[in-house]
């Protein structure tokens, strides 16, 4: 029996010929990641071990992104603690204001995570990096502390589910729509403890950015990891980025899958997930006319250059409705700079948007766009739980950047083709 790409990466990092789903394996880690929310607890735990160094100062990445630039005094104190730790332990990849970006936009862009890696991050959306053909999964702060100490982590080898997207994507449909559609079919625990492997012509046609968006939300179906086998696009993406040699893995033709789901990409409309779970996804036509108070374009899900280009293409020469606030958040400094060079930021500002420095900010109700009682947002983010973006009685609808930009113009949830054909 063959192995899936997930099983091969885990076997390779456990020093084993092969592994099977359900087995517990101890793996060597290529990278461990923490952010400004999870690192403080991890550092407290790490210090209890009384060690004088981390396993490899070049393989620990700390990104200040959630409540950064510091949103209040308490957050500032926590960053200070992380900064001191980074200095004391010589952490090479410590990213603070001016260098930082949203972690899951930043690490692929900087070539810190590469195909074939096995890594953990104390952030649930660490599963994003599966889009590069890596095994990457979210853990908590104590696992991060142990990972920083030992450079190892134990895993239960997940069963794999295969998702095949046949055919061609419709106009205005991207990675976000495919993953919302998928979660809508299988539910928020449909892939609990499992690997979600994405394949098919439509995935091949997606950019690496679109695949990052898809794998990013694997955790919203409960998955341990999302993954796409590397292809020419992946290798081109890595060509001037990868900071380490890497290994390309692929699933065997006879690899075991606990479930196989096949979808016709051409049948999938742009999607919108209704409150209060990502599984409540429906075609945008069923959401048409729902008025929104705020539109957010950004986050680790959709804060990449391609997302900004898509949004700017729709907003160019148009203005956002005066009934709502439009907030655009480029994912990293490099994306911000490139968006400036391409004139995208000008399009956003002329459309009446607030353009923010990179931050997770409003996605988790941190800062930079909190909702009041009874308000409703349409966001390109990843979670629409109760109170996620502010008041417990506010609402979040999730969509891709095209629907978000079109809706910003009309003031209500809108299919992009309605705006563009005008």
């Amino acid at each position, binding site marked *: 029996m063959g192995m899936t790409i997930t099983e091969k990466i885990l076997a390779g990092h456990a020093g084993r010929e092969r592994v099977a789903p359900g087995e517990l394996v101890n793996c060597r880690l290529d990278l461990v990641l923490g952010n400004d*929310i*999870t690192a*403080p*607890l991890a550092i*407290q*735990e790490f210090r*209890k*071990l009384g060690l004088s160094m981390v396993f490899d100062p070049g393989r620990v990445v700390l990104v200040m992104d*959630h*409540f950064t630039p510091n*949103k*209040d005094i*308490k*957050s500032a104190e*926590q960053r200070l603690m992380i900064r001191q730790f980074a200095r004391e332990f010589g952490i090479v990849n410590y990213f603070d204001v001016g260098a930082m970006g949203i972690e899951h936009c930043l690490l692929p862009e900087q070539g810190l995570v590469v195909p074939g890696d096995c890594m953990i*991050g*104390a*952030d*649930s959306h*660490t599963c994003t990096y599966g889009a590069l053909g890596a095994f990457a999964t*979210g*853990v*908590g*702060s*104590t*696992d991060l*502390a*142990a990972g920083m100490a030992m450079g190892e982590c134990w895993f239960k080898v997940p069963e794999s589910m295969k998702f095949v997207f046949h055919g061609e994507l419709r106009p205005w449909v991207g990675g976000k729509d495919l993953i919302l559609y998928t979660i809508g079919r299988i539910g*928020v*625990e449909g892939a*609990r*403890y499992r690997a979600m492997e994405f394949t098919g012509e439509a995935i091949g046609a997606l950019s690496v950015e679109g695949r990052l968006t898809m794998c990013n939300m694997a*955790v919203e179906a*409960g998955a*341990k990891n999302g993954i796409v086998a590397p292809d020419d696009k992946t290798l081109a993406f890595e060509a001037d980025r990868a900071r380490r040699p890497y290994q390309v893995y692929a699933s065997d033709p006879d690899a075991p899958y606990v479930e196989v789901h096949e979808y016709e990409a051409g049948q999938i409309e742009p999607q919108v997930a209704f409150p209060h*779970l990502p599984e409540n996804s429906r075609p945008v036509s069923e959401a048409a006319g729902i008025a929104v108070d705020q539109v957010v374009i950004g986050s680790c899900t959709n804060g990449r250059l391609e997302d900004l280009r898509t949004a700017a293409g729709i907003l160019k020469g148009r203005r956002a409705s005066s009934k709502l606030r439009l907030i655009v958040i480029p994912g990293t400094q490099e994306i911000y700079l490139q968006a400036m060079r391409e004139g995208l930021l000008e399009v956003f500002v002329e459309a009446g948007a607030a353009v923010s420095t990179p931050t997770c900010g409003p996605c*988790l*109700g*941190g800062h930079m766009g909190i909702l009041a009682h009874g308000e409703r947002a349409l966001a390109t983010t990843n*979670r629409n*739980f*109760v*109170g*996620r973006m502010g008041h*417990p009685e506010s609402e979040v609808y999730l969509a891709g950047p095209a629907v978000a930009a079109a809706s910003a113009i009309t003031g209500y949830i809108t299919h992009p083709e309605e705006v563009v054909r005008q």
Partner: protein
Amino acid sequence: MIIKGCIWKFGNDVNTDLIIPARYLNTTDPQELASHCMEDADKSFAGRVRPGDIIVAGCNFGCGSSREHAPVAIKSAGVSCVIAASFARIFYRNAVNIGLPILEAGESVQAIESGDEVEVDLATGEIRNLTHPAAYQAAAFPSFMQQIIKAGGLINYVRERMAD
């Protein structure tokens, strides 16, 4: 290890934003986190929960973010054990790592009602409802996981082992 307490009942897909909203993640102080525990699911919880109380919930408890603040808030609020039909994987791992006992017990425990007094044997996984007499069986923790819980979490467990 036997635990006894009163039940707080919650539904399916209780996510980490409900357990501890992100607006309180600017601290790691366990008592402060406890004072906001379950705030967006039940505002009265933090004020009324008593030491030893037990949470019973449906499927996918703890889904959402990786914030370890979630099991820390529950443990610091005095909750002695969380019993659910199923848990999200990061929450499960975090709970063990910080020494919060949790039991995966399938759908049958949904018969337990809020306010019932329940006794749990962590060594055997047996759950006994003392108010409306009934017994349920959850998978027991393997002994190394019981040791981690007993030590108060993974880091304490590792330190104890290293000191031996």
